[in-house]
C-alpha cells in the first residue's frame, strides 16, 4: 500500500472514531505539557557556589533549592499517570466498531501487518498532533507567563528552556510509545478476519488478596521511621525509593481491590435488589467486576495519594504547633523567622500536592465519562429494545447510577483509609516538651573513658509528651465527597446520552 | 407418486388386507390424494402378477372376500432398490403453473398474465395459510406436520416465483413480443 492509502484508511471512520482521535491527541498534549514542565524544572542551572547554592531569582522554594527540584520534577511527572490512564480509556472509545472495521480490511485482503500499521498510524498521528500542540502551548504559555515581579523574581521557570534534543524527544517519543502500545493492544484483533473475537471470560471471581498488598505497603511505610533512625545518612535515596515502592504497592492494592469490592457490592445488591434498576446494576457488577478497577483506577490512585497528603499536612501542622509551644515554653517569644518560613514552605508544598490531586481527580473523572459513554453506546441496541418494550429511560439511567455508585463509595473509603494510614505511618509521632539528654550508646568501658565517650554520645529527648496528629476528617471527607460528587456529575452527563442512544433507529441497524 | 412402492413399503411390516392398506396409506400420507379401493386392488393385482406380492390366505368374515397380502423376496428387493435410488432433481420444468403464464404471455397481453399471476398468488397464499393452520393446531401429529411442511416448502417456492415473476412480467412480455 502507498502511504497515502494508509493515511486514508487510518482516518476512515465515524464520529466516535473522530472523538477517539481528538481525545488521544488531547491526552498526548497534556502528557507532553507535563513532561515539558518537568524538563523545565530540571533545566534550571545551579548557580556557581556549591551544590546547595539557591537560584535566588525564583519566588518558589521548590524551584530555588537544588535539592527540591528533583522531587518537584518527579511530582510533575507523576501527573502524567492519570493522563496516560485517560489516554488508555480513550483508546477503548468506539473500539468495537473500530475492531470491526479493521477486521473488514482483513477480509478485503489486507495482511495482519498492514492492518496493524493502519491502526498504529491512527494513534501515532493523533499523538504526534497532540504532542506538537502541547509543545506549541508550552512555548506560547512560557512567553505569556514570563512576568518578573518588582524584584525581578519569577514564579515559574520561564527563563529556561529544555535543550532542543530534549524537546524533539518529547514530541517524537510520546507518539512512538503510544503507537507501540496500540500495536500491542491490537494483537488479538488482527489475528482474525472474522473480527468476532469473543472475549474469554476472566477465570474466577475476584478474591480479596489485594488487601495483602495494601497491608504490605502500609507495613513498608511503618518501617520507614525505625530504619531511618537505625541507618546512616547515605541511605536517604534508598529510603525514598522504599517509601515510593510501599506507596505504589498500596495504591496497586487499592486499585485491584476495587474489582473485589465491585463483585461483593454487586452480589449484595443482587440479594437485596428491589427494583429492576438495582438488579441490572448488580448483574453488571458481578458480570465484569474488573470494569470497576479499570474505570476507577486513576480516581482511586489520586484519592489514595491525596489522603496520604492530608496525613502529611496534619503532621506538618502539628509540628509547627509543637514548635511554637516549645518556643513559648523556652521563653522565645517571637517565632523564629527561618522556622516560620520552613513551616510555611511545607504547608504551601502541600497546597501544590492538593492541587495536583484535584487535577488528577478531574482527569480521572473525564476518563470515567469516556468509559460510561463507551458502555452506553456499546449497549445501545439492547437499551433501545428495552425502551421500545416500555422500560422507562429513567430506569436505565438509575441502573447506571447504581452500577457506578455501589462500588465507588466503598472503594473511595478504602482508598482514603489506605492512603491516610500510609501517610500517617511514614511520619513518626511528634514529641513535645522534654529535654535533650546525652546517652552513651556503647559498651560501659568505652563510655567510662571521656576520650571515647564523646564519639558515642547520642542526644535523646526525654520526658516529652508524645503527640500524634488528629485525623483530618474534614479534609478526608472533602476529598471523598469531592470524588463522589465528580463521579455523580459524570454519571449525570453520561445519562444525558441515553436519549440519542435509545432511539428506535438503533433497532434498524443490523 | 409411486403407489406400488408405497404399498410394498406398507406391506414390509407384515401382511395386510386391501382395506387395511388403504387406511394405512391415508394415515401415513395425510396430505396425499386419498387412495381409492379400486386403485388399491388394481395395484395389488399388478404386484401379484409381477411376483412382488403374494396372497397369504383368505378370511371369510361377514362381508366381502378379504384377502391378505404379503411381500415376496423379490418384492423386498424391489422396495430396497427403490429406496436407495436417488430421485432426479427436477430434470424438467413441467409445472402447469409455469406453462400457463408462458402461454398467457404468448396469446394475451401483460395485464392478462398479471391478473392470472395475482389470482394464482391469492390461491397459493390461501392454501399456504390453510396448511400452516393445520400445522399449528394443537391437535396436529408429526405426520401432519411433516406432510404440511413438504407442501408448504413447495408452495413457498411457487409463491416466491410468482412474486418475482409479477415484477418481471412486463420485461418478459417485451422479450416475447419485440
Amino acid at each position, binding site marked *: 500500500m502507498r502511504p497515502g492509502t494508509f493515511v486514508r484508511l487510518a482516518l476512515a471512520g465515524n464520529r466516535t472514531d473522530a472523538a477517539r482521535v481528538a481525545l488521544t491527541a488531547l491526552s498526548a498534549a497534556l502528557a507532553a505539557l507535563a513532561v515539558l514542565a518537568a524538563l523545565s524544572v530540571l533545566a534550571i542551572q545551579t548557580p556557581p557556589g556549591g551544590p546547595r547554592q539557591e537560584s535566588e531569582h525564583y519566588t518558589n522554594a521548590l524551584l530555588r533549592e537544588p535539592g527540591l527540584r528533583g522531587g518537584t520534577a518527579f511530582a510533575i511527572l507523576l501527573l502524567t499517570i492519570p493522563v496516560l490512564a485517560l489516554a488508555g480509556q480513550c483508546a477503548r472509545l468506539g473500539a468495537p466498531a473500530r475492531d470491526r472495521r479493521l477486521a473488514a480490511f482483513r477480509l478485503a485482503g489486507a495482511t495482519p501487518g498492514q492492518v496493524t500499521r493502519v491502526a498504529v498510524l491512527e494513534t501515532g498521528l493523533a499523538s504526534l498532533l497532540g504532542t506538537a500542540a502541547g509543545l506549541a502551548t508550552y512555548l506560547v504559555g512560557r512567553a505569556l507567563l514570563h512576568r518578573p515581579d518588582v524584584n525581578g523574581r519569577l514564579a515559574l521557570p520561564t527563563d529556561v528552556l529544555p535543550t532542543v534534543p530534549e524537546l524533539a524527544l518529547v514530541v517524537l517519543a510520546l507518539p512512538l510509545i503510544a503507537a507501540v502500545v496500540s500495536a500491542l493492544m491490537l494483537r488479538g484483533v488482527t489475528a482474525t478476519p472474522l473480527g468476532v473475537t469473543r472475549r474469554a471470560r476472566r477465570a474466577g471471581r475476584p478474591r480479596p488478596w489485594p488487601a495483602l498488598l495494601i497491608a504490605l505497603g502500609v507495613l513498608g511505610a511503618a518501617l520507614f521511621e525505625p530504619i531511618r533512625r537505625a541507618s546512616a545518612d547515605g541511605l536517604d535515596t534508598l529510603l525514598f525509593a522504599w517509601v515510593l515502592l510501599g506507596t505504589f504497592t498500596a495504591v496497586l492494592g487499592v486499585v485491584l481491590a476495587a474489582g473485589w469490592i465491585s463483585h461483593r457490592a454487586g452480589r449484595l445488591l443482587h440479594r437485596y435488589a*428491589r427494583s429492576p434498576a438495582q438488579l441490572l446494576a448488580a448483574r453488571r457488577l458481578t458480570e465484569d467486576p474488573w470494569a470497576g478497577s479499570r474505570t476507577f483506577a486513576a480516581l482511586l490512585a489520586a484519592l489514595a495519594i491525596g489522603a496520604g497528603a492530608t496525613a502529611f499536612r496534619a503532621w506538618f501542622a502539628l509540628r509547627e504547633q509543637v514548635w511554637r509551644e516549645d518556643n513559648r515554653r523556652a521563653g522565645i517569644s517571637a517565632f523564629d523567622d527561618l522556622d516560620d518560613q520552613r513551616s510555611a514552605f511545607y504547608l504551601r508544598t502541600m497546597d501544590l500536592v492538593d492541587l495536583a490531586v484535584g487535577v488528577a481527580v478531574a482527569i480521572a473523572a473525564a476518563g470515567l465519562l469516556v468509559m460510561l459513554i463507551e458502555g452506553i453506546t456499546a449497549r445501545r441496541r439492547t437499551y433501545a429494545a428495552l425502551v421500545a418494550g416500555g422500560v422507562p429511560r429513567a430506569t436505565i439511567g438509575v441502573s447506571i447510577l447504581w452500577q457506578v455508585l455501589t462500588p465507588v463509595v466503598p472503594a473511595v473509603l478504602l482508598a482514603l483509609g489506605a492512603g491516610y494510614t500510609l501517610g500517617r505511618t511514614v511520619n513518626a509521632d511528634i514529641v513535645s516538651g522534654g529535654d535533650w539528654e546525652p546517652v552513651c550508646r556503647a559498651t560501659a568501658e568505652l563510655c567510662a573513658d571521656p576520650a571515647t565517650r564523646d564519639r558515642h554520645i547520642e542526644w535523646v529527648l526525654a520526658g516529652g509528651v508524645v503527640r500524634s496528629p488528629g485525623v483530618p476528617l474534614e479534609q478526608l471527607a472533602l476529598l471523598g465527597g469531592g470524588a463522589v460528587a465528580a463521579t455523580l456529575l459524570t454519571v449525570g452527563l453520561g445519562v444525558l446520552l441515553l436519549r440519542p442512544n435509545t432511539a428506535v433507529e438503533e433497532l434498524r441497524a443490523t | 407418486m409411486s403407489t406400488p412402492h408405497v404399498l410394498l413399503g406398507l406391506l414390509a411390516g407384515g401382511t395386510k388386507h386391501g382395506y387395511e392398506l388403504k387406511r394405512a396409506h391415508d394415515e401415513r400420507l395425510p396430505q396425499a390424494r386419498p387412495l381409492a379401493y379400486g386403485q388399491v386392488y388394481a395395484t395389488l393385482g399388478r404386484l401379484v402378477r409381477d411376483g412382488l406380492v403374494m396372497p397369504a390366505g383368505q378370511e371369510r368374515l361377514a362381508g366381502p372376500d378379504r384377502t391378505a397380502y404379503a411381500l415376496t423376496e423379490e418384492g423386498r428387493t424391489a422396495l430396497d432398490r427403490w429406496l436407495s435410488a436417488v430421485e432426479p432433481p427436477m430434470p424438467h420444468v413441467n409445472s402447469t403453473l409455469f406453462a400457463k403464464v408462458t402461454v398467457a404471455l404468448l396469446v394475451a397481453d401483460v395485464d392478462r398474465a398479471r391478473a392470472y399471476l395475482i389470482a394464482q398468488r391469492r390461491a397459493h397464499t390461501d392454501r399456504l395459510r390453510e396448511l400452516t393452520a393445520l400445522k399449528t393446531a394443537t391437535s396436529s401429529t408429526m405426520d401432519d406436520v411433516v406432510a404440511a411442511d413438504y407442501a408448504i416448502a413447495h408452495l413457498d417456492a411457487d409463491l416466491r416465483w410468482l412474486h418475482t415473476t409479477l415484477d418481471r412480467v412486463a420485461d418478459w412480455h417485451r422479450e416475447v413480443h419485440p
Partner: protein
Amino acid sequence: MTQLQARGLVKSYGPTPALHGITLDVAEGEIVAVTGPSGCGKSTLLHCLAGILRPDAGEVVWRDQRIDTWPEAARSRLRRTEFGVLFQFGQLVAELTAAENVALPLLLAGTGRRAARTAALTWLDRFGVAELADVRPGEMSGGQQQRCATARALVTEPRVLFADEPTGALDTLTGEQVLTQLVRLAREQRTTVVLITHEPRIAAYADREIVLRDGVIDHTGLGLDASLAGGAR
C-alpha cells in the same frame, strides 16, 4: 371488537416518506401479518402502532383511546403493560440470566422478585427453555435467545404483541418452532398479534396479510377466518 386502528398514518424520515397514509383495523385476538419488500415501511408502521414512534399525521387508536397523542411516559407505560414487543435479535440484557430477563417487565410493573421469577419460569417452560433459567444470553444459541425474548414479550400477558421479523435470525426449523408456539399461545389467550415479515411462509401464520408497497397498502390477503378481520381494505 376492534383492538387497534390506524387512520391515515403518515410518517417521514427527513424528506423520505416511510408511511403514506395507512388505514387499517385489527380485531381482538386477530393475528395480522404485515409484509412487503424491504423499505416499504413495515417496521415504521409497527413502531407507530406500538406507540414507539409518533406519526406525523393520522391517528393510532387502541381500544377507543387515541394513543399517538399521549406523552412518552404514558405510551411507555402502555407498552410495558398492555403491549409486548419482539424484535429480530439483541433485545435480551446480556448480564441478566434468562429468568431475570423474562421477569424484567413484571419487576417494572412492581411484582415481587419471587413471584416474578415463578412467572418467568412458567413462561420459559412454555417455550421449552426452562433449563436455561440461570444461563446468560451469551451462552445460548440464537434460537434459545429468541425463545427467551418471546417469553419476555408474553410474560405480562399483553393484549397486543408486536413482532418485527421475530424469526429473521433463526434457521427454518427453529423459526417455525418459535412461531408455532407463539401462535398457539396467542390463540389460547386471544392476544392480538401484529407480525412483520417479508417471507410468505411466515406471513401464512397470520389470519390476514397486509402487503405494503412504498408506504401504502398494496393489497390485503383476507384469511380463512374472514369474520375475524374487520373491514380493513
